[in-house]
């Protein structure tokens, strides 16, 4: 079981109520127009924003809570976790600020508190803490949506079923009858239905992301690390032993490689 959010951009009116609810529950404060503020409206104190790629289309951006998240895979200290419920949460206490998660995220979601001298990574966690404490039944954003354009599901399969139902009931409404996030980078927990092509909006990418989870690309290489280490050690030790032995046999004297010659004129 994994939580999911289905956002139907054909229903969204761009009222920003979800943003307000997010600000309130996460105590995010004012949105300051710093020089580094990105056009999409997400930043260190905005975890959710509504962009308008076309005059009649509003798209709510937030962390997609990938099923196999790149950010979790790359964090060198394991500060990010994927919970059983599906939230990708983070522990600012052990973060060292390398910003690799920001680099690796295909959606450009983790944001940084650039204005602070002790900055942290910030992003949406599907209101994980408040939900774990039992204060709320569903994330603040979906609860706040007056148009039911963004809906919370306790199970991702349920969300997919609902999305398919909408596609079947409204033929021709949705772009390519596609559920955005169903398969991309291994699937995400935040799904989108839209009447327009969202590829330029939902991910900053030169090429389509494909369905392979990004972490597989590095983990494929990372499994070769221990064999490489021991392999290199063994090959070097073997080479040294062979060459050293051959030298000794040829010269009948102690090998030069043992740093003895470093001692120069020492007796």
């Amino acid at each position, binding site marked *: 079981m994994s939580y999911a959010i289905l956002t139907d951009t*054909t*229903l969204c*009116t761009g009222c920003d109520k979800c943003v307000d609810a997010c600000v309130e529950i996460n105590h995010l404060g004012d*949105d300051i127009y710093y020089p580094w*503020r*990105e056009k999409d409206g997400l930043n260190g104190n905005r975890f959710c924003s509504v962009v308008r790629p076309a*005059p*009649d*289309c509003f798209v709510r951006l937030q962390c997609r809570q990938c099923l196999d998240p790149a950010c979790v*895979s*790359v*964090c*060198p200290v*394991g500060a990010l976790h994927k919970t059983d419920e599906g939230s990708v949460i983070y522990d600012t206490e*052990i*973060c*060292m*600020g390398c*910003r*690799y998660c920001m680099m*690796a995220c295909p959606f450009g979601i983790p*944001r*940084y508190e*650039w*204005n602070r*001298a*002790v*900055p*942290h990574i910030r992003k949406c966690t599907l209101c994980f803490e408040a939900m774990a404490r039992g204060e709320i039944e569903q994330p603040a954003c979906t609860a706040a949506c007056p*148009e039911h354009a963004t809906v919370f599901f306790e199970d991702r399969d349920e969300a997919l079923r609902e999305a398919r139902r909408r596609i079947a009931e409204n033929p021709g*409404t949705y772009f390519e009858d596609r559920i955005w996030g169903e398969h991309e980078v291994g699937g995400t927990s935040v799904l989108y239905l839209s*009447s327009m092509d969202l590829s330029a909006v939902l991910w*900053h*990418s*030169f090429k389509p*992301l494909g369905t392979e989870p*990004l*972490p597989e*690309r*590095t983990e494929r*290489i*990372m499994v070769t*690390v221990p064999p*490489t*280490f*021991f392999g*290199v*050690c063994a090959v*070097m*030790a073997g080479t*040294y032993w062979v060459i*050293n032995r051959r030298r000794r046999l040829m010269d009948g004297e102690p090998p*030069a*490689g*043992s*740093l*003895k*010659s*470093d001692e*120069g004129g020492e007796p």
Partner: protein
Amino acid sequence: MRVRVTKIVLWGLVGASAVALAARFGNGLGATTNLSDLTPWGLWIGLKLAGVAFAAGGFTIAGVVYIFQLGPYHKLARRSVLLGLLGYTFFVVSLIVDLGIPWNIWRPVFYWNPHSPLFEVAWCVMLYLTVLLLEFAPVVLEKYRRIHVIDVAYRFLVAASIPIVILGIALSVLHQSSLGTLFAITPHRQHPLFYSPIVNVLFFVSCVAMGLGAVIVESYVANLLYRRKLDHELLPTIGRFMAWVVWLFITIRIADLVIRGDGHHLIESGWNNALFWFETLALLLLPSLLIQLRRVRNNRTLLAVMAFAVVGGFMLNRLTVAGLATITPTGTHYFPSALELLMSFGLVPGIAVLIWMFLVEHYQVWQPEPEVDQPDPSFAPPQFDPVSGVWLGDSMLAAFRRNSLAFIVAAALAFALLPHRALYGAGAVPTPVQRARGSTVMRIDGDRNGIAVEFKHQMHIDKLGDKDSCVQCHHLDEPLDKDTPCWVCHRDQWSATDIFDHDRHVADLQRMGTGDPCAACHLNTGGPHTAEHTASCTAEGCHHGHLEMRREGVTVELKDKDRARLAVGYVDALHGVCISCHKKKAAELNRPHHPDCATCHLDGPVPVRSAG
């Protein structure tokens, strides 16, 4: 003389960047760099990747000398290990500058995530730096062998040298390739010409060539600074070997591109292609071909130029992978700030080169020429070397005075030239509001971005009850004015602005001619004019003044009386006034959609399809 000037310049650079460093830690990364959420890694990371490859000479030559036991190269062993040490010092220093929370740098020791390439990098750096220190320690320790403990340590390290070297090679192989692995997970960021799933292999091959090139470059610099003799046999051979590695790199890279089916990008046109071909042809292929010519190889300047070109080519390659190739895919524009440039080319290389100079001057980094005896540590180094005819240095105190002067002067200059943002922290970008146009129907478009609200001013006056209703919106009047428009105080589209205008108060008071204009507000004009003083003695008066200026019967509420001087942003102000009133009217008039966005934003949010 050259040594002295070089040191002054380097100490100056370090001094200037020390100030930059203080600004970076005082005000954060946002104030001092041009990094942003979509380009979180910038010049620092790029140069770190490029700089650490210099260290590759350390393990390559160590392997050649100790494992393959090629005797003639032995004289290069110590200096290439030192290069490795400096490369990694460079890496660690710039990492500390770049990390958001550098005092958490030890976390990977206890918090593990073996899936992360950066976790592996962290461990390799820690271990390999230790290994390099152990490899290099005998050079320092041999000078103090008269002390028993040090002698024991020295003998132990020399005895353990082969395992240390093997460990160093294995760690280097892993570290250099895992720096590439960092970018295996970012296909969405790099142009296909520079993204490769086997980028770790490419990084490893290129670091070998860069390491060899760095050995040649170091010899040339040593020759330039200290007039050390260049080796006419070893260096050309190293140059040829470097060229072969370069060809291997180019072959793997193009084969990888073609096999993956991205070969067509090679013959497109554009910025990424220009980068790719400039790097491959001009900086890598051409020098590596020229170096095969005996005349080029045996000319020390030409050899050094070729090595410079190859090292530069690979540095460009790494800067490209880390940054330049991400411009097209992410659509972000990043150019390093002055402070980033200063710290990249001042602090980090400055420290590395100064350490290098200190070590080569005081310890036997260069294998002694046969005729030069091992210097006795009990003697101070000679100021003038009669054998080579070179100034090696002068009295320590004079050098100290000179270098610290350079440090302080440069630091003062840097402080004076610090940008406002770095000194005081980053503030919001101002978006000045421009007044609404029209009278009966007003077009409200504060930031003039074309998205406007047509506000029927006359209709509101009529419906709300003529002139008496002005006060419902126009809650504060300027002196000698009535129904002052919104934009006069709400001067920024998004941010809160201070409505107090000091210059205007001074001018008004002077015009009124009531004596000293300062004394009207500042109770004690003789006291120190510090910000705290001014705030403490006049804040109260100003607050009351402005609260009294509010008109009677206003409906707009002050949320925070303490912030009475602050006018909220234009957008917030208008939304606050309009929506709160529309909500009231919605109940009165029974028009539930009255507070909706679309009531005012006619060209704006309109539901496409009602919820079903």
